[in-house]
């Protein structure tokens, strides 16, 4: 029924659009951004013109929409230029939340919410109201947020062969981890040359974007703080109880020689080199860091270089309440929007609505049954993976701008398993499970935060500088006090006030 209404509505829209000069007779012309994700095989055509873009175009033509694909490179510069010069397609997207918020706050985007009842009923029902809120600024639906199937972020790993050699069990908290790191250093179970040994390696060189959620040691940090979503939203971590203890703990580890000495200057390639060569005992990294499905796999190359070496995932950072919590990504990858200059925002909504029809979503995620896959027990089964890649895989991600197949995560998981090439003895699955257990997300602000955008960059520079100093300089307290003083001088209290006011007005999301 919803589809019928959407079609009738679109036909009405087409009449208007034809008078406005867009599209072929009776059709609305919709320009849709498309991003190259993989190389298009020679026999399949081009990014904007291949059997699959043609399929979508034919289907949308039945709804009265002429879809034209506009390729887009990978740079944010182009986004800004396209928006500033009114050349952005009618349906565009960005993965940058700050960029999307800036476009919305500058009045550059359509309110898509008004079109959802008529043209986008699937968007509401499939994505859900909670999810849609990620695309709202001050209650206005400026973007449709895509779905992110796996939102796991970081997991800790420790060298099990080293623990075994020392007769130690798997550590379960910070104290046991510290003891293990000391044992790695003092007893050197891997017989690594002393100068090369790094009990804790791949250590982050910066505190991330202080006011976003890109800090690589969030999980260890939060193990020092009370779990308090209201405080996460209404405050900043440098002034939270426990933050000083967190930094002091890292400082102590570094001064004891348990954290890699050159963490502030070594690139991540060099840090990875140490891991691959078996010089590192413990890492806190993205959950899939070790398990790439190609010859670049860190775990496989480590096992090749150091026979018997094995990293296992561990939970070592329980909070004060004993619960292991992990930060996860926001459950969205892209913010899909229609620029204000577009005359067919309805058609953009209808396009997204079409993608969320169950049958269409299946086709865009897995290809056609009988061509790219067969069905067994309700799951798509891919026999010839190369054929799948050559006839559909090359374009699937480019077309599927709303994310993974939204009707059953088990299907996506089962499909992903079929593309697994290497066996990691279940460590990869355990790492993923650990990263997801009791996971929580950083607060999302759905209003323009002026103080944060104004003062944030300056504070980030201070944090980046003092992050290293607080860990490496001998006098921790002096460095920490100076860090807080400088943060306060540069406007940290203003940001906290703004966040507190937001919390009081909107509550915890």
């Amino acid at each position: 029924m919803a589809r019928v209404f959407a079609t009738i509505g679109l036909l009405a829209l087409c009449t208007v659009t034809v008078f406005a000069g867009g599209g072929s007779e009776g059709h609305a012309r919709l320009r849709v951004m498309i991003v190259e994700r993989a190389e298009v095989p020679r026999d399949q055509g081009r990014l904007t013109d291949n059997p699959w873009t043609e399929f979508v175009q034919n289907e949308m033509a039945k709804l009265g929409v002429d879809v034209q694909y506009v390729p887009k490179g990978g740079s944010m510069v182009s986004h800004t230029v396209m928006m500033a010069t009114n050349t952005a397609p009618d349906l565009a997207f960005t993965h940058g939340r700050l960029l999307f918020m800036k476009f919305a706050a500058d009045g550059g985007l359509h309110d898509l919410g008004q079109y959802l009842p008529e043209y986008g009923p699937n968007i509401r029902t499939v994505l859900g109201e909670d999810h849609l809120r990620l695309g709202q600024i001050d209650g206005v639906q400026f973007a449709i947020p895509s779905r992110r199937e796996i939102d796991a972020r970081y997991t800790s790993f420790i060298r099990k062969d080293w623990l075994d050699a020392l007769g130690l069990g798997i550590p379960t908290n910070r104290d046991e981890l510290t003891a293990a790191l000391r044992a790695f250093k003092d007893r050197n179970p891997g017989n690594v040359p002393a100068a090369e040994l790094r009990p804790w390696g791949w250590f982050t060189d910066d505190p991330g974007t202080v006011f976003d959620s890109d800090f690589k040691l969030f999980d260890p940090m939060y193990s020092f703080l009370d779990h308090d979503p209201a405080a996460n939203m209404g405050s900043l971590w440098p002034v939270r109880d426990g933050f000083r203890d967190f930094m002091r703990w890292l400082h102590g580890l570094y001064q004891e020689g348990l954290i890699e000495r050159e963490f502030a200057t070594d690139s991540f390639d060099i840090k990875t080199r140490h891991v691959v060569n078996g010089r590192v005992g413990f890492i806190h990294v993205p959950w899939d860091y070790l398990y790439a499905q190609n010859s670049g796999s860190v775990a496989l190359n480590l096992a090749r270089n150091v026979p018997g070496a094995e990293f296992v995932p561990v939970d070592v950072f329980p909070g004060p309440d004993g619960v292991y919590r992990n930060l996860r990504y926001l459950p969205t990858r892209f913010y899909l929007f229609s620029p204000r200059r577009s005359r067919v925002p309805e058609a953009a909504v209808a396009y997204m609505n079409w993608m969320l029809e169950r049958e269409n979503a299946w086709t865009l995620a897995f290809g056609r049954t009988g061509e790219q896959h067969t069905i067994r027990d309700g799951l798509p089964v891919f026999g010839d993976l190369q054929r799948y890649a050559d006839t559909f895989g090359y374009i699937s991600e480019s077309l599927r701008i709303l994310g993974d197949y939204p009707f059953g995560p088990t299907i996506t998981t089962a499909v992903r398993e079929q593309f697994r090439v290497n066996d990691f003895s279940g460590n990869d699955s355990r790492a993923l499970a650990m990263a997801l257990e009791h996971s929580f997300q950083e607060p999302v602000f759905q209003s323009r935060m002026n103080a944060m955008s104004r003062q944030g960059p300056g504070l980030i520079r201070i944090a980046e500088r003092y992050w290293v100093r607080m860990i490496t300089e001998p006098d921790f307290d002096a460095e920490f006090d100076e860090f807080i003083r400088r943060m306060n001088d540069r406007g940290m209290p203003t940001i906290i006030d703004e966040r507190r006011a937001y919390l009081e007005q909107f509550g915890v999301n």
Partner: protein
Amino acid sequence: MATRRDPITWFDALNVVLLTMVAAACLIPMIHVTALSFSSEGAILSGRVSLFPVGLQLQGYRTVFESAAMMRALVFTVYLTIVGTSVNVMITALGAYPLAKPDLVGRRVIWLLILFTMFFSGGLIPTFIVVRALGLLDTVWALILPGTIATFNLILMKTYFSGIPTSLAESARMDGASEIGILMRIILPLSTPIIATLTLFYGVGHWNQFFQALIYIQDPDKYTLQLRLQQLITDGIGFGPTVVFGRSDDIPVESVKAGAIMFATAPVLIAFPFLQKHFVKGALIGSLKE
């Protein structure tokens, strides 16, 4: 007659050592990347590759050469370089020739206007709007016309033309040659060093086109080699068709990246020695006015 050799001084020795070090600083990264391009993934990840390949393999280059995207980028960049450089040199010569004439009416004003563009530009967005308004977006001309004349190169060429004796042009004029005839038949044939120099300057500029291509080009078929290289290195596009949930094949990613860098750099490296002789001469002569 045998020439007498000057004795080697400390200054000479120091010069040789210093220049060798500078040359090595330029060469070693190239040699390293070449070694990476032939090395196995495990050896690269483990940091075992320095100046010689470890775990020799050719899969990296095979992937680069089998990549339709890379080959398209190569063809487009060659086209851009040839057409762009020809237009650049031609228009620069047409601009430099009259400006080199002392009796050109309004020469000082025109010259100042041109010099102004060396220090100030319209900025990214206004330039983009002009390019779009001219219908150049997503065409090779968006990469050629906005920078048709580089003021610095115009100065070099004008200075070079000024150094050619005016009596040559006058004799030709007395024999009935037109201005364009004088330029084409007298001046340009005497200017091969500066033409070669500017060809190299403009040619390398086009070969390395990145930012303008990023802004003005949307169609992946018109990506320049450098833009494609950036996509390959940062986004992994260009390794051939991939599957959705991770790669099923065993592509040595790091050596493909190194191979692609060599692929994009080698043509200029090969061309440079042939133009070097003219380049040094042209740049020197064009920079002096007697």
